[in-house]
C-alpha cells in the first residue's frame, strides 16, 4: 500500500495485526505507554539462607556466608575461603522430569524462580504465558559443566563429549530450564557481562514492562562457585589475601582490604506492571523506578578509576536524587572499585552524602557476577521494612571511603528510595533505582 503524501508505504493502519506484546484490550501504542513497574515477589537462594525470610533475617544480623571451601580442593591456592550454598534438596522446588536434565546452577536459579513465583501468588494457569517473560543474568553460567565436559573430552577424545552435558553447558540453558519448568513463553533473554550481568537483566526487564511488552517478567540471575572459576580468579590475582597485608576476607571500604572472596547464589524478582499487579490484588513490595547504564574505558581488568562513569549511571537512574536514603554499594573489597564508588557517591550527593546510608552486603555473600539478583531482593526488603543491612568485616574505613557506611550492625531507617549499584571490571556500570511503593502517586 502506497501513501501518496510521502511516497512510502504507511506502516500499520486499520487492519493492524494483533500484537502479542500488548495487553489484551489495550488500544494505546506501546511507545507512549509508561506503566509503573512494581516488585511483587522475591526468591533468594543464598549462602546465608534459602528463602526470603531466612535470608533477610541473617542479612540483618550480619551473618556471614564466608567459610572454608568444601566443594573442591583449594590446597593449590593461596586462598581458602568462599561463600558456598548449603546443601539444598532441589526436589522440593523442581519437577522430577526436568530436574534430571539440570546441572547445579540450573537447579539453583530454577529454585529461586520457584520461590519468587510462590511469593508473588501469581497463578500461572490463569495467566497468558506469552505475556510472562524471563530475563536472566549470569557471569559464567555453567562453568562447572563446561569444565566437566572439557575434561572428559580431553581424556577420551570426541567420544567423551557428553551430549547431555553440552546442552546444559550453554549460558542460556539456565533461562531455558526456567521457561520449560513453568511454561513461560514471553520474552526470554540471557545476559552475561561480568559483575553487571544480573543488573542488566533487571534493567532490560524494567524497560520492556514500561513499554507494555509483557505483564510479568522474572528478572535476576545467579552464578555458582566452581573450581575452574576459583582457578581463574586466583591466577588473575583477584582473590584475597592477594599481595596485601591483613588476613583473608571480604572487607569492602576497609583500610586493610586485600581482594575478594568468591560466593555463589541466585536472586529473582517478580517484576510486574502496576496495573496488572493491582488487577490481581498482588502484594506490592516496592517500585522499580529507574535505570542508568554507562561505561568506563580504563582497561579490560580495571573498574571505573575516576568514578565519573559510576556517577553518571546513578544520576540517570535516580530521577529524584533528593529522596535517595540508601545505597547498596557494588564495593567488593578491591581498592580501585571501593574508592571510585565512594568518590562517585560524593560527587553525586555532595553535602547530602553523610545522610545516605551505604552498605555492601557482598561482605556477607562474597563477590560473584550474578550477585545482583540477591542484592536487589535485599534493597527491596530495606524499602519494605525500613531496615538497612550492615557491611560486616570492616572496622576501620579507608579515609578515601569516608561515607556513611553502616558497619557491623543493621540500622533502622526511613528509606524513601534506594540505589543498587553494580560495576564490572572492564567498565560496564549499572545503577537501578527502587522506590517505596506509594499507591497515592
Amino acid at each position: 500500500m502506497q501513501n501518496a503524501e510521502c511516497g512510502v508505504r504507511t506502516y500499520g493502519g486499520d487492519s493492524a495485526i494483533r500484537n502479542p506484546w500488548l495487553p489484551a484490550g489495550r488500544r494505546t501504542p506501546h511507545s507512549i505507554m509508561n506503566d509503573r513497574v512494581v516488585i511483587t515477589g522475591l526468591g533468594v537462594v543464598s549462602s546465608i539462607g534459602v528463602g526470603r525470610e531466612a535470608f533477610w533475617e541473617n542479612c540483618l544480623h550480619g551473618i556471614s556466608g564466608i567459610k572454608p571451601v568444601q566443594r573442591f580442593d583449594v590446597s593449590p591456592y593461596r586462598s581458602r575461603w568462599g561463600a558456598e550454598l548449603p546443601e539444598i534438596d532441589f526436589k522440593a522446588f523442581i519437577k522430577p522430569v526436568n530436574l534430571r536434565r539440570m546441572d547445579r546452577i540450573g537447579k539453583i536459579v530454577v529454585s529461586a524462580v520457584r520461590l519468587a513465583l510462590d511469593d508473588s501468588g501469581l497463578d500461572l494457569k490463569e495467566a497468558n504465558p506469552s505475556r510472562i517473560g524471563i530475563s536472566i543474568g549470569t557471569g559464567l553460567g555453567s562453568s562447572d559443566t563446561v569444565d566437566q565436559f572439557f575434561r572428559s573430552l580431553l581424556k577420551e577424545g570426541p567420544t567423551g563429549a557428553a551430549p547431555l552435558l553440552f546442552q546444559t553447558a550453554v549460558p542460556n540453558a539456565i533461562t531455558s530450564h526456567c521457561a520449560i519448568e513453568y511454561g513461560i513463553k514471553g520474552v526470554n533473554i540471557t545476559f552475561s557481562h561480568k559483575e553487571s550481568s544480573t543488573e542488566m537483566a533487571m534493567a532490560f526487564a524494567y524497560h520492556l514492562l514500561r513499554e507494555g511488552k509483557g505483564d510479568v517478567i522474572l528478572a535476576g540471575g545467579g552464578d555458582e562457585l566452581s573450581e575452574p572459576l576459583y582457578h581463574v580468579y586466583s591466577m588473575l590475582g583477584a582473590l584475597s589475601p592477594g599481595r596485601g597485608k591483613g588476613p583473608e576476607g571480604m572487607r569492602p571500604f576497609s583500610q586493610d582490604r586485600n581482594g575478594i572472596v568468591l560466593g555463589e547464589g541466585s536472586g529473582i524478582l517478580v517484576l510486574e506492571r502496576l496495573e496488572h499487579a493491582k488487577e490481581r490484588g498482588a502484594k506490592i513490595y516496592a517500585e522499580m523506578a529507574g535505570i542508568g547504564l554507562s561505561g568506563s574505558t580504563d582497561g579490560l581488568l580495571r573498574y571505573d578509576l575516576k568514578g565519573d562513569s559510576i556517577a553518571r549511571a546513578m544520576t540517570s537512574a535516580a530521577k529524584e536524587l533528593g529522596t535517595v536514603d540508601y545505597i547498596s554499594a557494588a564495593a567488593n573489597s578491591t581498592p580501585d572499585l571501593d574508592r571510585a564508588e565512594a568518590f562517585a557517591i560524593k560527587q553525586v550527593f555532595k553535602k547530602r552524602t553523610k545522610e545516605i546510608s551505604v552498605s555492601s552486603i557482598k561482605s556477607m555473600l562474597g563477590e560473584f557476577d550474578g550477585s545482583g539478583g540477591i542484592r536487589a531482593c535485599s534493597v527491596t526488603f530495606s524499602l519494605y521494612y525500613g531496615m538497612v543491612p550492615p557491611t560486616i568485616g570492616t572496622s576501620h574505613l579507608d579515609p578515601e571511603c569516608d561515607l556513611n557506611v553502616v558497619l557491623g550492625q543493621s540500622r533502622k531507617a526511613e528509606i524513601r528510595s534506594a540505589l543498587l549499584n553494580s560495576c564490572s571490571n572492564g567498565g560496564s556500570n549499572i545503577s537501578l533505582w527502587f522506590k517505596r511503593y506509594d499507591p497515592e502517586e
Partner: protein
Amino acid sequence: MRRRVVITGLGVVSAVGNSLPEFWNSLVEGREGTKEITVFDPSAYRTRIAAEVSHLGPEAHFSKKEIRRLSRCDRFGLIAFREAWKSAHLDQDSCDKDRAGVVLGAGSGGILSVEKYFRNLYREGKKSSPSLLISYSLATTTDHIAIESGLKGPRSTTATVCSSSCTSIGVAYEMIQMGLADVMVTGGSDSLCEVSYSGFSSLKLVDPESCKPFDKRRQGLVIGEGAGILILEELEHALRREAPIHAEFLGYGICADAYHLTAPEPNGEGVERVIRIALAHAGIRPEDVDTINAHGTATPFNDIAETRGIKRAFGERAKEIPISGIKSMIGHCLGSAGGIEAVATVMTLKTGIIPPTIHYEVPDPLCDLNYTPNRSMQRDVRIALSNSFAFGGNNACLAFGKFNPNSKCRMRNAE
C-alpha cells in the same frame, strides 16, 4: 515518542570474506566457505569441516603485544568493528562518547584461548600465561571494542548463543529508545573452538559434507565463525552529521518456545509468534514483508519447524516470499550468526539482491517454500526480516526497512 533508528555502519569477518565488499560479493555469487579445520586438530572427529575464517593476517591489524592478549574472537570483533565504525564516518565525525555504547552477542567467546590454558593444565599440569584466561568472560570482546574506541555509553553482552547477536541488536535498539544512547555498536563475534564443535558433534547435528538448508539430503549444520557488526544510530543524530544510512531498523521480537532444551517446537508455533511480535512492534503487516533471511541451520528439525512457522505467520503468501539460508555459505557462526545475517539483510535492502541458499538440489516435501535456490535474485525489497533461534527454544526476529530520505512520515505504530 518512539525514536527512529537507522543503520549507518556495517562490518564483517567471515569464512567467505574478511570485509563487507568481499563478503557480499561471495554471497551474491553463492560462494561457500567450508573447508578443513585448522584451528584445532579435527582428525578424531567423524566430520572435519567448518566454515573457518582464513587469510586474516592479524599482523596487519594488531601489534605483537595486542596479538598476545587478543583471543581469536576478539580479533574478529575488533576488525569488523573498525570497518563498521569507519564506514559510518564515526572515525571522522565527532560524537558524544558518553552516549555511544556497545551491546554484542556472544556464543563461546574467547574460549579457544581458555581451552588452550586448561588443555596444558589438565594434560601436562603446566600453568600457561594467565593472559589466556582474560577471555574466560563472554564480555571480553564487548569490552575490547568499547575500550579501544573510548565508548562510555551503555554496555552489555547477551548470551543466548545461536540467537545472541540477533537479540543483542534488539537490546541495542532499546538502549536508543530509552534515551540512554544515540549510537550503539551491536552484532556479535564468535570463533571456532573444540568445545562447541565436539558438543554439536556429540548431538549428531554436524553435516560431514556441506550445509544444505531446506534440502531433503540435509544432515545438519556446518559450524562457522566470524563477526558481524552494525552501527545503530538515532535518525536525527545520523541526519545531523550526514551519515550514510543503509537501512532503517523497524522492530524486533524475542520469545520462548518453552518446549525442549535442544529441539524446536515442531509445529512452528514459537517461530510464528516471534515473527508476529516483530511485525507488530515494527508496525508492519505480513503482506509488507518482501524477503526473509532464515535461521536455516540445515538440521532436520529446525528447517521443518521454521518452514511451518513462516507458513503460519504468512498464510498463503508464504510461498511467494523469497527466503535465503546463507548458512549454506558462511556456516552457523553461533554467537555471531545473527549479526552477520543482519548485515546481509541490510545489504539486501540496500542493493535489492537476495542471496541464495546454495547446495539446494532435492526438495523436501516438508520444506516447500521459495528458498532462493542456488542463484541470487534481484527484487524490489522494502522490508526484510532476519530470524535466529537458539537452544532451549529461544527465538528472535528482526525487521529492517529501506530508508526513505524524502519521507517525513514517522512510522505509525500498529497494535
